[in-house]
């Protein structure tokens, strides 16, 4: 069976390679030192590889297959994207594994009700921080040049390997010991509409999460008043939600300001500050937040400041972090990149958590500090 799957995959890849396909390979090799378990420093080193096959040549049908792998002593291969989309006169449709960007916000986005861009514990070293993908089916309906409606269905995400074991066991044993596959009513479904009102980009939407039995409406807006500004708000309504207080406790508000400045002849500065407010989160210090499990284990407010500087010769520096004002702890990441030759870059990152043992961030924790350097080549 395993050989058959590999054979079919190879035929698929060969077919892609033979057709009109744009192939992109990204290799990244990083190595460094970081806080390990038991507060002992550990050596880190791993390579990542990504191969993307994108269809070309048909203006009305597009497809992409992106495979990524983390390569250490053992390797972990993932399908980042695998989708087909087709365009018809009045609408277009997409089926497969990819990402949809709902709401506004770079790090904190309360409007991202599908992927949930609100977790303050994140790796800040990437160009894109929120890159999760899901298997989805979506339809996009243009309503004007700058307005559209979009619907989405997120079926239960089936773990193929797990399902294979489950079905194999079902054939061997009368009653498999593994639990059944996800039920159809655990799917998610929703829609959004986006347009412009008085030069302000405005968006509203809703997602029903069958797996949680919750309803998640949201609104989002983006505009410019000397600096670019954006804000999103969402709430989670479930069977247990009965009062205005419950709705307030389940709500999330994110906001951000962004500005580009040129302080000297050779430097371009990008300045960004974002915030996340969760009325239902914790507003007093004292609870052990070393291993948060649910939203109630996070504080009620976080800030995300970021400053990045671009220099001539494709050299960039950035400093970004997450600050928890309630327990005065934080995470800061400094990064540098230099695109020396076509597709070839040198990268370096340093991350430090600052806080006490029971705080949201603490240097003694696993990866409480990390310094990594490496190279990346895209071809």
């Amino acid at each position, binding site marked *: 069976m395993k050989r058959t799957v590999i054979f079919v995959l190879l035929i698929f890849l060969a077919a892609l390679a033979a057709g009109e396909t*744009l192939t992109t390979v990204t290799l990244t090799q990083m190595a460094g030192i970081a806080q390990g378990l038991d507060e002992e420093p550990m050596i880190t080193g791993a390579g990542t590889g990504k191969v993307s096959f994108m269809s070309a040549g048909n203006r009305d049908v597009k497809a992409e297959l992106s495979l990524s792998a983390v390569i250490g002593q053992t390797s972990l291969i993932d399908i980042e994207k695998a989708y087909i989309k087709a365009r018809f006169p009045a609408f277009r449709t997409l089926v497969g594994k990819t990402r949809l*960007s709902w709401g506004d916000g770079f790090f904190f986005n309360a409007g991202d009700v599908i992927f949930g861009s609100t977790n303050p514990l994140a790796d800040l070293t990437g160009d894109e921080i929120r890159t999760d993908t899901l298997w989805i089916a979506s339809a996009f309906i243009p309503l004007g040049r700058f307005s559209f409606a979009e619907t989405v269905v997120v079926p239960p995400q089936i773990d193929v390997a797990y399902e294979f074991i489950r079905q194999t066991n079902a054939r061997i044993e009368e009653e498999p010991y593994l639990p059944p596959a996800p039920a159809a009513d655990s799917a998610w479904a929703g829609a959004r509409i986006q347009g412009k009102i008085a030069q302000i980009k405005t968006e509203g939407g809703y997602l029903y999460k069958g797996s949680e039995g919750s309803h998640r409406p949201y609104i989002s807006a983006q505009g*410019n008043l000397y600096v*670019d500004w954006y804000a999103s708000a969402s709430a989670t309504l479930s069977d247990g939600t009965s009062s205005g207080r419950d709705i307030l406790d389940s709500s999330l508000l994110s906001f951000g300001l962004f500005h580009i400045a040129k302080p000297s002849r050779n430097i*371009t500065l990008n300045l960004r500050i974002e915030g996340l407010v969760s009325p239902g989160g914790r507003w007093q210090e004292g609870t052990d937040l070393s291993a948060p499990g649910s939203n109630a284990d996070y504080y009620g407010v976080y800030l995300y400041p970021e400053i990045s500087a671009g220099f*001539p*010769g494709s050299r960039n520096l950035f400093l970004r972090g997450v600050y928890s004002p309630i327990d005065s702890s934080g995470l800061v990441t400094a990064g540098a990149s230099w695109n020396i*030759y076509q597709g070839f870059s040198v990268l370096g990152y340093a991350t430090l958590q600052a806080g006490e043992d029971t705080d949201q961030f603490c240097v003694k924790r696993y990866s409480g500090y990390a310094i990594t350097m490496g190279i990346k080549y895209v071809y």
Partner: protein
Amino acid sequence: MKQIAVFLMAAVTVLSAQALSPEDIITRMEDNQVHDNARAEGRMLTTDKFGTIERTFISYSRGSDESLIEFTSIEEAGQKILRTENEIYLYFPDAEELIRLQGAALRDSVMDSDFSYEDMTGEGGILDDYKVFLEEDETVDGHLCYVIRMEAKRRSVPYQLQRIWVDKELFAYRRAHRYSKAGTLLKEMQITRIETINGKHIPMDFIMSDKMKKDSQTVFTLDSLELGIRLDDSLFSVDELTW
């Protein structure tokens, strides 16, 4: 007799050319260089002391206000820039993210080149945005040019002051200098190749130097250009941008 006729024709031509106002020159230049519909394929080569980085693209434009650029080079494949009216939208396919640029963000450079997003995506009608003044003629690369100083009518235009050199024979740009309000030279554009397509004289190769950067320049080359083609209205929309 024939010599007299030729002389008279030449005199009339010179007199009529001399009589052109700066507004007439701009109008004739825009008639020559602004197209109802156009599709182009080209390259953007950014050079510094380590070498050259090439980015390829396909662009579509309608008039002077609407354009869509899609990058086709491997590292940037699928990234798009849409300009319409006073806004610029960026689309990044990896993150499936649509970003709307306004205000100062429009002056950021495109992929670390010497072009800003506004430079890449053109500008509105010159006479709507600038008061124009004719200066002394000058010669650029052996071509006699009108020199026109352009002063912005409002603060929201990308450059408050510009000086352009317009070929007196072809009515096409030969050179452009773009200044800050204080008169500091910000960018210099030099046209190195002009081709005649469908009777219009089109700059095909030009060099942009950002004077705020040291030792940096970007060469912009159009490998092909089609004019007067049919473009669907939906091409300049969020639908096409995120497709």
